[in-house]
């Protein structure tokens, strides 16, 4: 009897713990899938840590995760953060404006500020070059690659990103991935901002203020944790665009450099420059959400000379 009673009295708290866990999980899930127009500031981290063997190779990049965690831990001192280890699938980054199965509004775009860390490369079709990033395979999109920009009939990449067009309203996107902001071969407009009249493609800028990426090959293994942490700390007091370029670029002398580039777009070049020079994580509301902007500004460290891409001018 004693033992049964003990079992019962031990079981009751266990049930309570389970119930509390379920409630907390449901609440956190609600927060995760809630859109960010509910009054609180939020930041999301999406790291591709391991991926399908059918996407070329199996890998486990703890370096990527460590780098991202340093940023999100620093952000956590200022806002609600969500971290998604191994959380990068096509639907999470694809807008449902582009494809019905796209669910970016509840994932990548559900936050005011998001960071993607994954592998990336140059994808060439019909003589045009643009950036594509690696992700986990999904049934409704058989490709392991996602491309924000132009699409070509007969090719397996689509123009999948349309950033900031809804109340979810992502305003700053960091993309730490090789070639994600490639200066040459017209890759920045081909990837993020292509709107030549004859093609009628929409800009990926649909209200987002700035996107930050890498020219050439970038490294996570060589001391990027501290710069990521400092970006997450300093971006609340200083220009995010400049913090990205300052923290994530590294001039290594006779070794290949890491070359960060920030891109901001707006209705006028003056407004785009204002985003570059003054927008912080906490003052984003000072800058308008411009869909299909007419002007963009990029900044970079001159002479930065990375792997697998020419030196910046």
């Amino acid at each position, binding site marked *: 009897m004693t033992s049964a009673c003990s079992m019962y009295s031990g079981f009751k708290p266990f049930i309570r713990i389970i119930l509390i866990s379920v409630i907390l999980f449901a609440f956190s899930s609600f927060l995760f899938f809630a859109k960010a127009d509910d009054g609180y500031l939020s930041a999301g981290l999406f790291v591709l840590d391991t991926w399908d063997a059918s996407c*070329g*190779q199996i890998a486990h990049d703890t370096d990527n995760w460590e780098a991202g965690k340093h940023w999100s*831990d*620093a952000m956590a*001192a200022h806002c609600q953060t969500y971290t998604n280890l191994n959380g990068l699938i096509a639907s999470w980054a694809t807008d449902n404006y582009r494809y019905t199965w796209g669910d970016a509004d509840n994932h990548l775009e559900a936050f005011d500020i998001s960071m993607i860390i994954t592998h990336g490369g140059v994808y060439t079709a019909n003589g045009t070059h643009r950036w594509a990033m690696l992700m986990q395979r999904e049934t409704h999109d058989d490709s392991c690659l996602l491309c924000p920009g132009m699409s070509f009939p007969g090719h397996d990449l689509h123009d999948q990103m349309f950033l900031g067009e809804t109340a979810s309203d992502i305003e700053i996107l960091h993309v730490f991935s090789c070639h994600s902001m490639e200066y040459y071969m*017209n890759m*920045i*407009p081909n990837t993020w*901002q292509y*709107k*030549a*009249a004859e093609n009628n493609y929409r*800009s990926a800028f649909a209200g987002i203020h700035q996107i930050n990426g890498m020219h050439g090959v970038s490294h996570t*293994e*060589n*001391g990027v944790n*501290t*710069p990521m942490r*400092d970006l997450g*700390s*300093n971006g609340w*007091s*200083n*220009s995010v665009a*400049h*913090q990205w*370029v*300052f*923290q994530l*670029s*590294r*001039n*290594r*002398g*006779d*070794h*290949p450099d890491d070359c960060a580039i920030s891109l901001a*777009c707006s209705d006028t*070049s003056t407004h*785009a*420059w204002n985003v*570059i*020079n*003054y927008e912080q994580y906490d003052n984003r509301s000072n800058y308008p959400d411009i869909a299909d*902007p*007419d*002007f*963009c*500004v*990029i*900044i*970079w*460290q*001159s*002479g*930065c000379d990375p*792997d*697998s891409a020419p030196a*910046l*001018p």
Partner: protein
Amino acid sequence: MSAKRNRIISFFIVIAIFTIISSNSFSYDYLTPTVITKKYTIVPFYNSIDNLLKDCNSLGFDMQDAKVEYKQGCFVLENADFIFSISDEGFINYVSKSIKWFNIDDAKVSIADDDIYHSAYNILSALNVDIDDIGYSSVLRIHGQAFSTTNWEPVGPLMTTGFVFTAERQLDGILAYDSLAKIAFNADGELIDFSLNWPVVEAVLSEKIYLLPENVLKLEATDIISKLGDEAAFVDGTLAIIAIVIDGGNSELAIQYVYHFKTSNESFIKMGKLDPKL
């Protein structure tokens, strides 16, 4: 007399044999892996408010109305003008809250690179960085350009928003890639930002660390290349540089082998950490 002559001849024979042996051993050394005879360790860093205040004083920062707190593994000093912090690992981070970035026509920049070097070296000296330890330094401009989204043609001139000074450390002439100083200035040369990871190190002992033979290096290189997939086709790999790497997180010393790969259409360098062979 004959005995004396024999002694002289014997002396020269000994000298000749010694010379031959020496020359053989030199050839042997040339064929065998390089030897490094010095190791460094990081002197443990003990974080404290005193360190923070001392560095602020050295830099001449006005600490009026500043508050100090310990959060997320850092002592942080903050006021209306700046945030200055030192982490438990000894990493220093400063960012200005009052000095702003701005863009001006690159052709009209009046600040010279030498001005930036001068300011940067003053900051490093105030933080007790031995300038003689700097093995590589550079000043790069931060450039900016506006574009029309209709045709991606430049709008307005090339702009400059500021400068970035970078310094890498060298120990005995070998770059220690995990020691780094970066300092950012706006286009007027005003300090905006710096980060410093420059641990105190000391040479502790002489020890022979034999590097891997070239054939083993090539096997390692091939393995690295195979992991790169389609990124590059391995044509040739040679040991280009030997670098001492200070791992601040673990306070350990490792040897970093740097491979210089040549592919069919380009030349690039990859780094891979291997266990030193003692």
